[in-house]
């Protein structure tokens, strides 16, 4: 048998639909970019610096951990860059460089790699990092304090902090359209509601995230805020205000549906979204933080394994 060619033996199926982790990461980055650019436009080069540092340091932490742990380099799948970008988008534009680098360390190494790397993280890494920074450097993460040297042509108070301190009357005059179009202050990439919504819808249509989580998230948020507003309209802001300020749309489309830390079954996804959305409003209205959405996401992550126990009966199973 002189010209015998070697065949490859593999297991079925021999087709694949071509989905790749790298593609998913690129889709998420693409969907998040418009909102990030609005932040850069609003807050200038400091915002660009924070975003660039967040992405690059996240990738470098990932690479460093790969090397130290002697594991295959996983930078190429783009998940570290996604975490870095999403983390950066939640920060105030003036956060010092050391806080950004510490944050990406927390996100990549603490919240993800020591849990086992991609796919093994129990909590959303970007949310973990922001939560720790909020607890550790309260002042630095405070939007109003961070943006004190900026001059805007619109009310320059963080709307959620204003409503928490002074009640609904403080924000009653804010135009919802202004909020939606990014004429507000907040985390770099979280102020452009329209861009976040467009990016989120894009991700849903491309099949990267599941529609159930953002929809139930926003519904849970609206219902809870509605109940509060109905009970005390003077103190609590109406649902539309809550949906368009803070991390709401960002959380609905970019934080809560993170693959590894969110459920996969239909009913659990609905419960998960609704729980996260309503806890976010609870923290805003009666909690300590003006914007505690990342903590709501972490609580949702925590109950996710329990929620996924609610599953359909498999074919042919009776009990």
């Amino acid at each position, binding site marked *: 048998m002189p010209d015998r*060619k*070697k*065949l*490859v*033996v*593999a*297991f*079925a*199926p*021999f*087709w*694949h*639909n*071509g*989905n*790749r*982790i790298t593609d*998913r990461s690129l889709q998420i980055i693409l969907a998040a970019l418009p909102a990030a650019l609005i932040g850069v436009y609003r807050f200038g080069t400091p915002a660009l610096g924070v975003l660039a540092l967040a992405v690059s340091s996240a990738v470098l932490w990932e690479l460093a951990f790969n090397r130290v742990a002697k594991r295959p380099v996983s930078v190429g*799948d783009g998940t570290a860059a996604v975490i870095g970008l999403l983390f950066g988008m939640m920060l105030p534009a003036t956060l010092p460089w050391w806080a950004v680098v510490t944050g990406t360390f927390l996100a990549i190494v603490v919240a993800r790699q020591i849990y*086992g*790397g*991609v*796919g*093994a993280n129990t909590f959303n890494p970007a949310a973990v990092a922001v939560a720790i920074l909020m607890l550790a450097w309260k002042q630095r993460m405070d939007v109003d304090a961070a943006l004190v040297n900026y001059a805007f042509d619109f009310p320059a108070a963080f709307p959620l902090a204003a409503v928490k301190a002074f009640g609904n009357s403080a924000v009653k005059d804010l135009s919802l359209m202004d909020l939606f179009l990014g004429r507000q202050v907040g985390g770099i990439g979280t102020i452009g509601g329209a861009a976040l919504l467009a990016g989120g819808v894009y991700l*849903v*249509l*491309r*099949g990267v995230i*599941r*529609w159930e989580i953002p929809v139930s998230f926003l519904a849970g948020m609206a219902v809870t805020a509605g109940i509060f507003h109905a009970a005390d309209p003077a103190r609590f802001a109406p649902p539309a205000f809550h949906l368009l300020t803070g991390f709401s749309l960002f959380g609905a489309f970019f934080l809560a549906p993170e*693959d*590894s*830390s*969110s*459920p*996969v*079954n239909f009913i659990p996804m609905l419960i998960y979204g609704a729980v996260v959305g309503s806890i976010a409003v609870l923290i805003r209205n009666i909690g300590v933080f003006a914007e505690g959405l990342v903590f709501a996401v972490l609580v949702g992550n925590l109950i996710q394994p329990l929620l*996924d126990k609610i*599953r*359909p*009966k*498999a*074919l*042919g*199973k*009776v009990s």
Partner: protein
Amino acid sequence: MTKSKPLWGMGRPRLEYTQLPARIERPEPIRPAGPVTLLHLRPAEGKAIPAVKIGETVKTGQKLALYGNGDYVTSPVTGAIAALAPFPGSFDRNYTAVAIAPAPQEVFDDALSAVHRTPSLAAAADFLAAGPGAPGLHRLTAAERPIRTLVVCGVDQDLLVFTQQYVLGARMPDIQKGIRILKQIAGLEEVVILTRKEAVQGFGHIVGRVMGVEHGYPSALPPLVMAGLFGRVVPAGRTCEDLGFCFMSAEAVASVGTAFGTGRVPVNKLMTVILKDGLARLAEAPIGTPVADVLKHFGAATAEGDRIVIGGPMRGTAVYTPDHPVQPDTDAILLLDAAAAAHVSDYPCINCGECVRVCPARMQINLLVRYLEAGKFEEAEESYDLDACVECGLCSYVCVSKIPILQYITLAKHELARMRRAESPNA
């Protein structure tokens, strides 16, 4: 071959069964260029000595029972036994490869013609077990689970393949004869013929109820036909036969009809041949013909790193040599270019849930695969419905991490079965 999913789409992949192309009129007859090879299952225990010797002459249609345990192969040619060699199969199956060099003069074995006018289940099982379509007639003889309904599959179970569709269209008289004989000898109450959904109306007055199968993969798999068309869900870990249903390919039923009609065991196997150009052909070759001869007939060259798949792209088996023979159940031969075949990776599950949403058995694959990767097969079966799998391969098809999920599942089922076999004598 990578079939990319549409740019937009939140839904499940739409994989549809292939319809028999209008350009296919008849199969291309292929004769083996050299010896044919028959794979005879070797008993697991002991050192079995084959009951035939090299140089012995055999007739076309002659039974070759090598080990006296009920298993046999049927010689598709007249000639002399040229070689006997061990042939390792997958999943602990070992075969003896019987090579037969064809002689110029074809002589038919007359053992069946002596009894073919009085059909019986014993005679059918005695002559047709290795017939084209692999009828699996032993399923009809098990007394503890009587078969009431015969389901004749005129649809193919895998994508790209149209072998059974062709048989249903071209060999209806043989199928009808086969159905009548099987009804008579096995005491069947009902016969159902499965066809493509749009073809249900096209049948005239025939024996058997015609039912249409949806075009979307994997609706033609027996457990899903049972649930979808008959409303009978096969309990996980059990078989269709346990519920009194026996699925048989149209070709197998036609083989029964031909065998008892002519007194000769049919030896030619029909198959869809899909080459690298993606174009499918229909070929007919004696069982035992090397795949290489089939490919050579169509002028297809294999290159380093190619894959030869016996069966379709979702459920087939890749073989390691082009000398692999055409078997009684080889419905398709798929030649895949090295660059076009899907590859697997050792990336971990990212919990995206694509598999969970695509699974026709509603299994919790994202959790199951974690147990399977860790080798915890018993827990996988107890808690995560391993035994409910219908082995359609859609989970691997959509997996973002390219985990070989179906391979893990098949391995786990095999290992559990092996463990139980080893434990049962001591139980």
